[in-house]
């Protein structure tokens, strides 16, 4: 029923004609709105995953708890079928009264984002040179300081890599939302398929893939800048 109300897209638009037409970008179902939709949802997922998993994993690794669960989690993180999980959550969400959007896809994407951040934080802190930790303790650092100023600082690069993997995976998976009753950047692929419009379909695929590539690039840049000064000096002397 909503299909009829949608803005009529001309059949078989040219891919770049459509992409470079300002009219495609503006308006209530323009690319900018869809892009913002996707970016906001993905940001919420990655931020929530980071602020929950980094403290939890670093505390577990610092106190050397939960050693066995890691290898099991590696397998699990690869096995999560996001499409199925989101599909399963839709009826449950409706039953509770949370509606079609955005809870099912949000929770499904969150499940996807948690493992890489948890695993990278946990292993990175576990592998911090015990000598450095002992030195900090001998200098009278409190346990909190050891964790924050030594272990977390030395683990920063690996933790950020985990956040990057999570972010790229989330951005790459979010487009399935368009097929589960939502919108976001995946809607052009959906509409292109639904309207038999190859131009729109390919343009939509380019947008989706482009955003995933851009996310990877942005996080690589952040990784370059966010490394603590001392750790960066350490890294450069090590590579020399």
């Amino acid at each position, binding site marked *: 029923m909503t299909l009829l109300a949608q803005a009529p897209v001309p059949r078989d638009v040219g891919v770049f004609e459509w992409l470079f037409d300002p009219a495609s970008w503006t308006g209530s179902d323009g690319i900018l709105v869809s892009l913002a939709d996707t970016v906001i949802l993905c940001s919420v997922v990655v931020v929530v995953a980071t602020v929950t998993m980094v403290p939890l994993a670093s505390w577990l690794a610092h106190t050397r708890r939960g050693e066995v669960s890691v290898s099991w989690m590696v*397998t699990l993180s690869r096995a999560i*079928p996001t*499409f199925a999980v989101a599909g399963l959550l839709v009826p449950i969400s409706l*039953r509770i009264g949370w509606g079609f959007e955005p809870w099912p896809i949000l929770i499904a994407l969150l499940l996807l984002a948690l493992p890489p951040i948890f695993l990278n934080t946990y292993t990175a802190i576990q592998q911090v040179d015990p000598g450095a930790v002992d030195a900090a303790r001998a200098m009278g650092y409190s346990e909190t300081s050891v964790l924050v100023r030594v272990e977390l600082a030395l683990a920063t690069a690996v933790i950020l890599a985990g956040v990057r993997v999570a972010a790229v995976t989330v951005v790459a998976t979010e487009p399935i939302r368009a*097929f589960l009753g939502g919108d976001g950047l995946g809607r052009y692929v959906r509409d292109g398929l639904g309207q038999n419009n*190859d131009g729109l379909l390919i343009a939509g695929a380019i947008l989706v893939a482009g955003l995933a590539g851009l996310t990877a690039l942005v996080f690589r840049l952040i990784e370059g800048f966010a490394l603590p000064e001392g750790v960066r000096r350490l890294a450069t002397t090590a590579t020399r």
Partner: protein
Amino acid sequence: MNAVFAQAPNPIVRWEYFIDEWDQIQSALLEHLELTVYAVGLGLIASAGLSAIALRYRWALAPINGFTAFLYTIPSVALFGILVPYFGLSRLTAVLPLAAYTLLILVTNIVAGFNAVSPEVREAADSMGMTPTRKVLQVELPLAMPYIIAGLRVAVVSTVGIVTVAAIIGQGGLGRLILDGLRRAFWTPMTIGAVLSILLALALDGLILGVGRWLTPWAQRARRAP
């Protein structure tokens, strides 16, 4: 829509569906299995070739890794979508991206497996007068098998998960039940599709684990030894 819900109770699972629509469930499950087998089979053949090149010519390893990692980062919705204009809503359009996603893990593990064979074992095989082909098939491949099996498990499990996404191009086995259920706002097929695809992943994972143990009995003996 709310009025419809009020009239007809729409439970998360309606058990009669299993009996009434058993043919549908069965064909979806079979299609899911077929897509997974085709994709991982194709991925395994391509990975074997790529790994052979990477092991033979060391300089080729980095570009091959870069290429497979690049393929892996392309969103599945984009990859399925971009192939539709060329191959239509066909099984090929579903299998090609699925196979492409398996390359990263399979090539990584095959190369790691063959690199883990110790030089002494290779020398022993050489001094026994084995031909290069026999050395690869009878010495190096069996020793690399645990790595290959580990890679295969991850590849199969993640493929079963991504197959559901292929429902957007009219394929997708159990994913089709999920989409059909969504379109009709009928939750039973959605729940069945989602749960069965998770169970299928676990079952295939266990199957490959078992086959791997059967293929490498010495690895089990080594594990049991104190």
